[in-house]
């Protein structure tokens, strides 16, 4: 006896490719995701293409051109050292993006592995790990960051390390919760009844079903990392001058905000749009992937 066929699409040859294309389709339909990913892509493009977009140097001091207002030569004017503000903002994305991408990737990777493992293993290991992570979480991040940065000295690598240290426990929590949601499901039970090893269960059954959580977490986390790193730069623990970093630019120029608004506003806007982009992407991704049954299951 045959069953009603609910108008399912033609058999795709490659499921992975299909998943990707379906995701792309879903994302394309969501305006939020489009705007968000668009903004992030724009920032990426600008950062990568910076040398092509502007011929000026982001670090050269030109005393004759200090403190100029916006003009044809300098669209957003120059700062106190005669550097073109627009050029610095354009190059500023390089630092912000590389450091926060690296830091986020480390935190997410470590957090995902730990989170999944502890969720699946459970028992005493889980209890111990969660207790330690709780203790780490209880220490204010800014304090931990300051201590790490003072111990090891500021520098991109140290900042990546510090941010990883501070954010991994939070990622572990999120991933663990997601994995715990998946762990009792019947397909995981089936794998356990087959007697599969934990690692194999993790890679085959759990991880593919929480990638969306991880991806959303990544976008979300990245936006916080961008903000955190700018705060560090602002407090003087981040990029060294003359690195064109947004947080540093804001802190360098904020005193002169009244007479030179663009030198401060431009990096603020750049920073805010990147964070907005990341946030919207996170929103869009989570909406696109929140397994909306009405649409998925016929």
């Amino acid at each position: 006896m045959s069953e009603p066929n609910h108008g399912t699409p033609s058999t795709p040859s490659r499921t992975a490719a299909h998943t990707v294309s379906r995701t792309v389709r879903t994302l394309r339909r969501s305006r939020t995701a489009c705007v968000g990913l668009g903004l992030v892509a724009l920032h990426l493009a600008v950062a990568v293409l910076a040398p092509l977009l502007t011929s000026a140097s982001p670090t050269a001091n030109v005393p004759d051109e200090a403190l100029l207002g916006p003009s044809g030569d300098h669209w957003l004017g120059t700062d106190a050292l005669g550097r073109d503000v627009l050029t610095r903002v354009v190059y500023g994305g390089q630092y912000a993006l590389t450091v926060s991408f690296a830091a986020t990737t480390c935190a997410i990777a470590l957090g995902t592995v730990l989170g999944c493992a502890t969720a699946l293993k459970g028992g005493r290991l889980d209890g111990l790990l969660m207790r330690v992570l709780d203790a780490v979480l209880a220490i204010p991040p800014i304090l931990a960051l300051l201590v790490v940065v003072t111990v090891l000295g500021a520098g991109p690598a140290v900042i990546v390390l510090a941010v990883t240290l501070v954010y991994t426990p939070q990622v572990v929590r999120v991933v663990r919760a997601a994995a715990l949601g998946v762990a009792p499901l019947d397909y995981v039970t089936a794998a356990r009844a087959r007697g599969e090893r934990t690692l194999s269960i993790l890679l085959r059954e759990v991880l593919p079903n929480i990638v969306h959580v991880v991806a959303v977490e990544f976008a979300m986390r990245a936006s916080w990392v961008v903000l955190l790193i700018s705060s560090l730069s602002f407090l003087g623990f981040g990029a060294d001058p003359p690195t064109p970093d947004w947080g540093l630019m804001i802190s360098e120029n904020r005193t002169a905000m009244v007479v030179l608004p663009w030198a401060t506003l431009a990096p603020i806007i750049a920073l805010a749009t990147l964070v907005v982009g990341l946030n919207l992407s996170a929103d869009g991704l989570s909406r696109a992937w929140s397994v909306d049954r009405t649409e998925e299951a016929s």
Partner: protein
Amino acid sequence: SRTGAEAASSVPEGAATGTPADGGVLRIARPPASQAETLDPADSLSAYEYLGALYNRLVRMDENGETVPDLATDWESDDEGTKWTFRLREGVDFHDGTRFTSADAAYTLRRILDPDLASPQATVLTPLLSPEGVHTPEPGVLRVELDTPNFEFPALLTNYHCYVVPEGSGGSIGESGIGTGPFRLENFSPGGRGRVVADEGHWEGRPVLDAIEMFAMTDIQARTNALLAGQVDLLSQTNLDFATARVVAASDNATIARSVNAQWYVLPMLTTAEPFTDARVRRAMKTAYDPVHLLDVALQGTGVVGEDNPVPPETPYWTDHSLERDPERARALLSEAGHEGLQVDLYTSTYDPVFTPMALAYRDSVAEAGIDVRVRNASADSYYTQIWMQRPLMATYWYTGRPADQLLNQIFRSGSSYNETAWSDPDFDDLLDSARSTADGDRRRRLYQDAQRLVVEEAGAMTPMFADRLVGLSREVLNYHESGFEFDYLNIGLRP
């Protein structure tokens, strides 16, 4: 478009003068030096802004660099320059009512010489004076017998560590602040706020103001905001960067007082640290950069070029000796020393807004000589404990207004506690010794100039520029006159 040099003229030259209102309270925002700061003038952590209000010295330095009377009315030395006699002002009382006598002056001097106190001024005075050499023949006369002749001795007493404190007050002066100055202490907390009130019986007459309140603020932006918002009237020890100065000058509440050549900026190379142990490297670092570029970038022209000589131009002992800028020569020197393509870290901080621009301009300037400078930002709060005299290369500044002898002895003499480059050259020390003991003014000047030449050629300090200090103050403030560390506490006042 307007260039930076033109823009410089948009900052006012000096503070407003006029007849102030009687009384009033002046509010000052100051950087908190440390939790450990004290009111003891001899201490290395003294709270500078309070000192001038609370104390007097025997002699002080006027705006032209001349030594003039304060608590001492006149002074003279014997022909060798070893026996000095100071006649003291009569009828002066300390804030606690006790009379000022030569015993207090002698106590002050002996205290500075006390090795346990480790006063920074001790390193200047100890070579020429021992406690036994201080005599009080009568209450109104102080006699000082120097171990070695020194015709500049009174000038050395103009230093802010030499404020006179009452006899026997050593244990309590750090909190009590009892002196003979125009203001009495009302309260003070280290690194926090404090208040001084007019001393009605001050020997020079009552000051114009009723009181001065001081507030400590770490962040320079916070200080500026407080001024712009009208919460304070004056930013002390705060040299505003040019852009901020324009903001302040443009505001309705506040303006800028410009104090010409008030400080010099230095990039000290620690001569005990690699690679600066090698004189050729130091020479290369000096010839490689163009001070004019630094002046333009960091100060927008509000200052003059320093030529690696910290003695301010046009002052009595100044020499115009300078090194030629020559990047090729610098490159050659470096390869000779085996440091081709030298890479160094240059530390700066937001402690002073000029540090970083200066460091960046230096970095630009020496690139041509193949020197790769990495500018490293350090925290402002611990800059002078973690970086200064610890790192091979950093940015710092000194206030002008010290006599050449004090300056050269304190900052360049072997073993001096403020010798920030740890430079040690016996020839230089000999030159200073002979200068001090030379009675003939012209000869003495030549000796000091020879010493400066050595500083320019050999020492570890790069002195690219002298800067005007841009002091932010309220438009209400009248008669703000500044010299060295202090301003004129007696006459400053508020608009009626």
